[in-house]
């Protein structure tokens, strides 16, 4: 009997260098990244453009090899697609051949994943239902809206029933309603036991997903932890309330004091998620400059 590994995704000392230009100038995309993700966890990669989020996902998908260190998915080296059966990868805004139908495209990807024709047929029907595209199976891919195309992209990542999902900006370019539907879909997949690693620039969407936050800057992980820690709940937490009467305020202050907390009025300086995010990036930049 083999116990399920406590870590599904593991990056150990991963550095990735790209050679740029004719002179082969080295550009460091990832710098000594260490990360461990538990089964069923949802991890959101945050960070500015060029911070290494997509590179990290590509390494996990086996599209690229790390310069040093190792990327493992369920204990298998991800390099050269060795762990491909366990991974579902959705790149940022892929463009599918417009002439194929949704069903045919998914069957094609299912068969490329190694499923035989009958299994591909069965998995395609199941995944179409999961992502809500069952009534569009016979529709040409070229006629789908951006939101539906993103759902199709998610469907192709799911069609071979992988344990780990790698999603590169799944809501990029999608309208708010479409983005909300996509997030609901991602939460549903997590509830089904899938381990999800996704990158995004949308802080509110990331907060809505909860789970672990991995903040990256210049190829380094500068924060990795739960959302409550990221938002600063360890030091302070902000709540918006209706105007409180002095008696109610005193009562609340006493209740908090009994639990070791102090009540303060945030007033107009309401710390937004965006402010926390920028603050953490600035802190990391300051530390880097001082060293």
């Amino acid at each position, binding site marked *: 009997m083999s116990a399920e590994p406590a870590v599904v995704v593991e990056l150990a000392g991963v550095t990735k260098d790209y050679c740029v230009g004719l002179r082969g100038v080295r550009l460091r995309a990832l710098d000594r990244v260490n990360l461990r993700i538990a089964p069923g966890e949802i991890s959101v990669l945050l960070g500015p453009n060029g911070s290494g989020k997509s590179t990290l996902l590509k390494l996990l998908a086996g599209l690229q090899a790390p310069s040093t260190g190792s990327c493992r998915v369920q204990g298998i080296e991800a390099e*050269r697609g060795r762990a491909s059966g366990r*991974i579902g990868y959705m790149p940022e805004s892929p463009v599918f051949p417009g002439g194929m139908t949704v069903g045919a495209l998914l069957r094609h*990807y299912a068969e490329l994943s190694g499923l035989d024709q009958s299994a591909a047929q069965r998995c395609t029907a199941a995944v179409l239902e999961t992502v809500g595209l069952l009534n569009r199976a016979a529709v040409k891919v070229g006629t789908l809206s951006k939101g539906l195309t993103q759902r199709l992209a998610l469907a192709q990542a799911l069609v071979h029933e992988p344990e780990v999902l790698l999603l590169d900006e799944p809501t990029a370019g999608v309208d708010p309603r479409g983005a909300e539907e996509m997030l609901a879909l991602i939460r549903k997949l997590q509830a089904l036991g899938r381990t999800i690693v996704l990158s995004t620039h949308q802080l509110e969407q990331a907060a809505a997903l909860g789970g672990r936050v991995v903040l990256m800057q210049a190829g380094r992980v500068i924060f990795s932890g739960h959302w409550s820690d990221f938002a600063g709940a360890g030091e302070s937490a902000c709540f918006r309330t209706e105007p409180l009467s002095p008696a109610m305020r005193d009562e609340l202050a006493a209740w908090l004091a009994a639990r070791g907390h102090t009540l303060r009025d945030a007033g107009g300086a309401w710390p937004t998620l965006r402010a926390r995010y920028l603050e953490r990036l600035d802190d990391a930049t300051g530390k880097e400059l001082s060293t």
Partner: protein
Amino acid sequence: MRRVRLIATATLRESLQQRSFGLLLLAALAFVAGTLFLRQFNFGSSELKFVADLGFGMLSLGAALLAITMTTQVFFDECERRTLHLLLARGVSRSEFLLGKLGGVTLLLGLYTFVLLTCLCPVLWARETALLALMPDGFERGYGLNFAGVMIAAYAFWLKSWVLASAVLWLATFAQNRISAMGCGLLLLVIFHTGGVLAVYGSNGGWPAWLSYGVRYILPDFAAFDLTPAVFEGADGFVGRAARLTLYAVLYGAVFIGLGVLQLRRREI
């Protein structure tokens, strides 16, 4: 092999939906059918050779253009649309990807050759019949054309375009964009045709001789793929040449694809 077949089939399906393929095929068919108007001039028995030369010229030129443009297109479409990511993340190897793409283009080139032949053969047959009725003594052997020879000549042109497609696929693996890959592909087409010309200059010795040896023995010699004499001389003797030519083409195709796989492994996707 299953993945190669799946990629090849998808590539063929996508290529057939390209407007450029349809336009090129229509233009080639119109050109071949247009050779019927040569009967307006009084070329005598030479007319048949004119028609065959023009038909095979169109076959060769069109297949070469298709090999360059379609191969570049199917490769860069996958890269730029990020669908290559989806294939590689599924465990499709670089060699399976390139072989699948080459397979799709090979089928497309075969289809182009077949369709053009189905137009060229009736044209040649119609003119042969008419000319034999007009001048029964105009042809030495009592017939103008050997249709088995027509097939062999067409097969050789298809092989030539296949070698070109595999070379262009190799170029595409390290080209930055499709324009540079197409430009280098056209350059290769010219260079692969220069073997015969350099042989003339190289017969005097010196550096032209070395250059001639280099081009003729390192790079494929496209002049060797011209088996159009079989159209008039009969297929005898050309079957063996076509078999040797197949080995020659497969060897070069394998080298180009091997180099392409090595380069694609180094390329950051």
